[in-house]
């Protein structure tokens, strides 16, 4: 294996959002300092290991958490080390996630100088009372400021994250957020419908805000509005949750949907070596201790069969506007369900490619379950 994407997880935030499902904790500088050291250590250990050793990096993504809280010199050091460890082509996409309330012009410039060329800003909404309701620490003003500062720092490839489907948000207010986001001249938009699931349920929203519980019908209406607005604005809806102007589709995201290998570093980070999936332990202290003993912080390796990989490729591939090549997956697809879903407009087959039409993407889970219904296990 030569090429892979690289992901770093920085699990610290200025405050904890109740809907967040990532491993994260409120910033404690001494813990963060220790973590930054162990993260580097993991990079060094892994770079010596097959199959990553001597590989070529396709893209880098620093996510979190709030990685924009990282000291700029640390980001610089990290990117320099990557150059030492792997083949690092000069023009690859290097993204950092930023929170509008936790970023300044100075560090943005320093990030850019270090090699960051793409920023993903966690705006969530551009409506003040919605931001308060989501207990974000930033205002819409902060979002404007962050976008301008990034551009001034030389980072032109700017993506915003927006959220929809929460109580208190209407179709109109989401449309308003979208229009304001488009006015900022962004190149890329990631959207996601708030869904409370799994361990997120344990955290409750702040007492003083009305509880944003997901409403699937509202989310569907908002999704329809989203698709039509983004189309008008000339964006390519290249994946279920992602829109981009031509040429700005995220390289890093593609690695996940096309089952390209990726190496995830940091607490709870996931890796895929082309055959098997694995992930790191999700507890910061344990992660630190493990690496300080020169041990790899891996928690689980999931061995995937060939059929497993292919069924994964089906449900990841159908998330994209490229869809799937029919012939590659024919043997795991239920032909009766395929025919029925084509008849009722849930799937399109053309030129040997299977696609989910944009307006049906929100039912992707059902479509995939039906399509793969002849498999004993989904993966």
């Amino acid at each position: 294996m030569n090429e892979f994407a690289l992901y770093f997880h920085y699990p610290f935030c200025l405050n904890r959002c109740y809907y967040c499902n990532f491993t994260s904790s409120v910033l404690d500088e001494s813990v963060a300092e220790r973590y930054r050291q162990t993260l580097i250590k993991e990079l060094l250990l892994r770079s010596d290991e097959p199959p990553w050793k001597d590989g070529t990096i396709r893209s880098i993504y620093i996510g979190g958490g709030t990685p924009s809280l990282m000291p700029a010199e640390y980001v610089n050091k990290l990117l320099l080390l990557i150059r030492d460890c792997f083949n690092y082509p000069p023009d690859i996409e290097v993204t950092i996630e930023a929170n509008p309330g936790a970023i300044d012009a100075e560090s943005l410039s320093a990030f850019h100088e270090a090699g960051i060329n793409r920023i993903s800003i966690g705006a969530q909404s551009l409506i003040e009372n919605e931001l308060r309701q989501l207990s974000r620490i930033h205002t819409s003003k902060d979002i404007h400021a962050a976008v301008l500062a990034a551009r001034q720092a030389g980072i032109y490839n700017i993506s915003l994250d927006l959220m929809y489907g929460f109580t208190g948000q209407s179709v109109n207010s989401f449309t308003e957020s979208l229009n304001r986001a488009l006015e900022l001249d962004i190149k890329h938009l990631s959207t996601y419908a708030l869904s409370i699931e799994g361990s997120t349920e344990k955290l409750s929203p702040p007492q003083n805000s009305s509880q944003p519980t997901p409403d699937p019908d509202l989310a569907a209406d908002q999704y329809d509005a989203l698709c039509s607005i983004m189309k008008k604005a000339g964006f390519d809806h290249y994946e279920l949750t992602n829109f981009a102007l031509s040429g700005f589709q995220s390289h890093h995201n593609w690695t996940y949907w096309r089952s390209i290998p990726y190496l995830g570093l940091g607490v709870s980070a996931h890796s895929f070596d082309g055959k098997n999936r694995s992930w790191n332990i999700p507890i910061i202290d344990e992660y630190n201790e493990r690496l300080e003993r020169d041990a790899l912080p891996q928690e689980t390796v999931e061995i995937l069969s060939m059929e497993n990989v292919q069924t994964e490729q089906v449900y990841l591939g159908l998330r994209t506007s490229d869809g799937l090549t029919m012939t590659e997956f024919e043997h795991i697809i239920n032909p009766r369900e395929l025919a029925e879903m084509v008849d009722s407009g849930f799937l399109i087959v053309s030129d040997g490619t299977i696609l989910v039409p944009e307006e049906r993407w929100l039912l992707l889970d059902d479509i995939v379950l039906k399509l793969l219904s002849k498999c004993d296990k989904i993966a």
Partner: protein
Amino acid sequence: MPGSSPDRIRNFCIIAHIDHGKSTLADRLLEHTGLVDSIGNRPQLLDDMDLERERGITIKSHAVSMNYHCSDGGDYILNLIDTPGHVDFSYEVSRSLAACEGAILLVDASQGVEAQTIANVYLALEYDLTLLPVMNKIDLVSAQPDICRQQIVDLIGCSPEEVLSVSAKEGTGVPEMVAALINAIPPPSVVKDQPLQALIFDSLFDNYRGAIAYVRVVSGILKPGMTIFFHSTGIRYLVDEVGLLRLERVKTDQLGTGQMGYVIPGCKEVGETRVGDTIGDDADPLPDPLPGYREPKPMVFAGLFPANAEDYESLKDALARLKLNDASLQYEPETSGSLGFGFRCGFLGLLHLEIVQERLEREYDLNLVSTVPNVKYRVTDNHGEVRFIDNPAHLPPVSNIKVVEEPIIKAQVVTPPEYVGAIMQLATERRGIYDTTEYLDARRAVLHYKMPLSEIIYDFYDKLKSMSRGYASFDYELTGWEPTLMVKLDILLNGEIVDAMSVLVNEDKAYAWGRRVVDKLAELIPRQMFEVAIQAAISSRIIARATVRAYRKNVTAKCYGGDVTRKRKLLEKQKEGKKRMKSFGNVEVPQEAFMAILKSD
């Protein structure tokens, strides 16, 4: 062997209303006779099914032999059969009674005589059993021994002094009760030199030994090596082994006259040892079987289908095995347009149905769908030909029907007087025709009704219990057939009839039934990719309708930082959820819906 002569044997059972403490008293007897040291934290020792312990009820009869050294110096064998208490299992009770000379009539001193007590007393008298009246739970603060004693005296005509008092929970009064039992209950009567006759009162299937019959030897001797035959089938067997029922089976040389025990006849075929059947000696056969054997009569019929079609053979095998332990279960293959291959089963009642379904699912790891249960109808066509219909799908076209008759029961409800009004209203709603009311005492009225059986099979018992705060009790017997105006009501999902949901229902009740089922289904069927139209129809006339809107969003949106595994697990979970669903065309219906539509809120 101590007490092996018949006059040292006492065969008895305990009859009681449900929850009056039968299984606990059995536990105390096991301790007092030294068969077990202490029940400890394994109460209801004889109830060995998980389901029995969980529900706190006895489903199967259990038999146990205890040796007892009496203070009179004699050694006795006390054979106890612990019997089920629910109204559905009155046939099981009858078989146990037929194997006994006497019965402990157990009454909860805080509850008094209830419907099941009365029904069981009548049944015991039918079998000429000597009754030993015992009040239980005298340790309770709420116990009213004087009132309870009087009720018992009124019921069986004994003297007040004959009524014993025990606390099965604490063990008080148990030694006195055992002594009284040995005195009061007669030993098995012996007809000298009569050849072998043994009554099968229960049977079970052992994976290693095949069928095992629990028997009461009425005359003669049963021993290994002899050739026996079963009256109902005429098939001959070589006896492999006989023995006593302790907590485990204990092998012996023979079972003598009057004794209870087990026999392993070496039959590997499931379903040959029929409960209630008579065993005879092939070398010296008696022409007639023992009296008391009745073919069990199922009252309620429903289809049971495997949720996964490939489990059909497993279900067939599981039913065959259950049938061996459960003489009252009947089944035959059935094909449903909507559910595929399955079985039409006959049950004693709704509890019996639930228990069978639960046992099949638990003990045989099957996933089942049950259709709406119904009673059996007697249909006479225009040519005067009579047919019994237990499946809505088999109802002839209406134009060919001259008359439909439904089974009628005589029902008795025992209740404190304050609930009489509410219960009368319930009975009227259920097409009950009032007969009489008697008072057992100031606290207890007995209402007698004539009712269609179909009106009590769903939730009558639950309703009765809830409206009387658990005090009212109920029992019934089948009396005959009466003409009824009945229609077949179909349920349609997106225009397709789901035959498994069709019911035969009284014409006057069809509209309400249809409305209720449609609403209930609308509640139970989850939103899915397509809109679901739910309709109730009589012939082609739609009488109720509801719609489940299609949902528009079901996707796990984000691949959090490359965590594909998490997304896949969410999909797996959804796939698991779908396994509990049954597809009808493009509509997915949760399996629970089939049973849930029966229950009113």
